[in-house]
């Protein structure tokens, strides 16, 4: 166990502010945050073409257009997960600290210590307002985006981890960001990390 490093995963509902919370925690602790740019970093490190893969990240698998058996798979999401697991696994092996937002981060850091696995959720109104503002869309479109994104995250995570994506038993902290707001939630999580 490397006591000097800290591994933090933030799983999050779309619109709950998990990405921002991850950034705040990363900045305060001075450690890298792996988020939407993780795949790009992976592709850069291994020399893969990012444009070929970017559309499949955290999306559900197409049941009728892909096949998988044993260790073999034609599912692009499986290949992305494998690349990211390999990349993050290497960082863990090197003793690096980081915050990982989504992308099955909880599964990746589960067996390592010290680690904090958080799930950020929020009430629908809070999320929809944030999505409308952030993506400049109407209420209905924000609702559809939220449903689609969360479905993708759920299916992606549950394909590679055991248990349900939003089951509190799979996390150390399960927190509603709508109660305290983004910054206070980040502060609370930081305190949890420091106490741990």
């Amino acid at each position, binding site marked *: 166990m490397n006591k000097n490093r800290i591994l933090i995963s933030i799983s999050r509902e779309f619109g709950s502010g998990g990405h921002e919370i991850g950034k705040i925690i990363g900045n305060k602790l001075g450690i890298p945050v792996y988020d939407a740019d993780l795949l790009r970093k992976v592709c850069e490190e291994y020399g*893969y073409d990012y444009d070929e893969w970017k559309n499949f990240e955290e999306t559900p698998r197409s049941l*009728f*257009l892909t096949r*998988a058996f*044993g260790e073999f798979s034609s599912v692009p999401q499986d290949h992305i997960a494998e690349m990211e697991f390999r990349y993050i696994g290497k960082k863990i092996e090197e003793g690096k600290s980081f915050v990982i937002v989504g992308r099955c981060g909880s599964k990746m850091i589960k067996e390592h210590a010290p680690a904090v696995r958080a799930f950020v959720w929020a009430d629908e109104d809070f999320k929809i307002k944030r999505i409308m503002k952030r993506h400049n869309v109407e209420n209905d479109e924000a609702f559809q985006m939220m449903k689609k994104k969360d479905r993708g995250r759920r299916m992606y995570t549950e394909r590679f981890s055991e248990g349900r994506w939003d089951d509190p038993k799979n996390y150390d902290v399960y927190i509603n960001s709508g109660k305290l707001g983004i910054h206070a939630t980040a502060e609370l999580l930081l305190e949890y990390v420091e106490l741990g």
Partner: protein
Amino acid sequence: MAAKIAAIILFVSMFALMIGGRIERHKITLATGGVMLVLVQGIIMKSGKAIMDVLAVKDLFLPGFWFSKAGSSGGEMGINWATIIFIAGMMIMVEGLGRAGFFKWLCRNIAKWANFNPKKILILFMVLSAALAMFIDSITVILFLATATIELAKILRFNPVPMLISEIFCANLGGAATMCGDPPNIIVGTALNYSFFDFLRNTGVIALVGMFVAVAFLYWRCGKNLDSKEIDIKELRKSMNPVEAIRNKREFCISSFIFGLSVVLLVSHEYTGLTVASIGVIIGAVSLILSRERKALIHDIDGKTLLFFIGLFVVVGGLESTHVLEFIAESVSKLGTGNDYLCIIMIMAVSAGASAIIDNIPFAAVMIPIIKHISLARGIPLDVIAWSLSIGTDIGGSATPIGASANVVGISVAGKHGRYIGWGRYCRDSVPATVLVLLSAAAVIYIRYFAI
């Protein structure tokens, strides 16, 4: 009627679960097979005989099961134990070959022989892929060939994707040539008592013609993207020594000998009377006796695939015992009314179309009782229908990324190395190649069985 409906529901559910992909496919076929036996044959049909027919354990005690000149070999219905035993034996042998470094050694030798010219490598790897797939399952062939291709592509700096697609296509085509090349052929061959040479003389000729068509087409499509970069060939020849791929010289010699033995036994089994079940046992036993890595060889047997086959045969046997397949056969036998050639081509086309989108192994297993019925109903020789079924299922599977297991393996190996092969990219080369090869097969079938 209740038995028929229950059997159909179970079969369709099995396919749906396999498409879903959340549960391992051997669990799906075994569970469906278990429910089929208990519910359909046990509770609805109340027939202990039907259960025993589906399990087909009695086949193992027939002398003809092990020695073809000793009478009936069984395999009329239910679990096709000959297929299971043969595949298990070949798995042990192939595992030995892989562990010894045989495939890597072979690929490196060929690349060296081609002077590391990507265009020459493309042609040679297509031929190698087809030749190996005649005797070894195409999954193993593609697993090793795809890895070697990606390794070479990194060194020689070319895009491996077109070459991978060409190799996959040729592996499926090579597998169509022989009885042991592709699982549908093993199922057809053992169920209908055809020999290795029966396949070679029929599907072998069709596949050979198809191979000329496929190599010419794929070279034209893919070769132009394989320009040689400035590579120090002399340095490469020194650094890429095929002998270094051999992990253990003793194991390498033994596994190469056993591979040669398996080819000899398969080629001569019509004369020796050894059935594929006997060959599977001999090859597996010799591999285990001679190898010092026997524990590893046993450990690495792909038991899940064997269980998948067992479950599948139970499901299909269950369908057969309810006579539901005869209904389907009645409709299919009316295809191309009045014209036997048209009927044959329709069977090939339907098999190809179905195999392009669903697993061709269950499809072939279901089609066997159907083609028997068609043969009786239409008076078309059963073997001609069987060849068109084999060719259709084997080649049709090449058309899409999910049509055959080898395709998934190739795409998977590419994906693990960061190369995405989607439907668009895959089908751009594979669909026209499949259509061309099927047209050439239709022409050969006409000339061989109808014109003369």
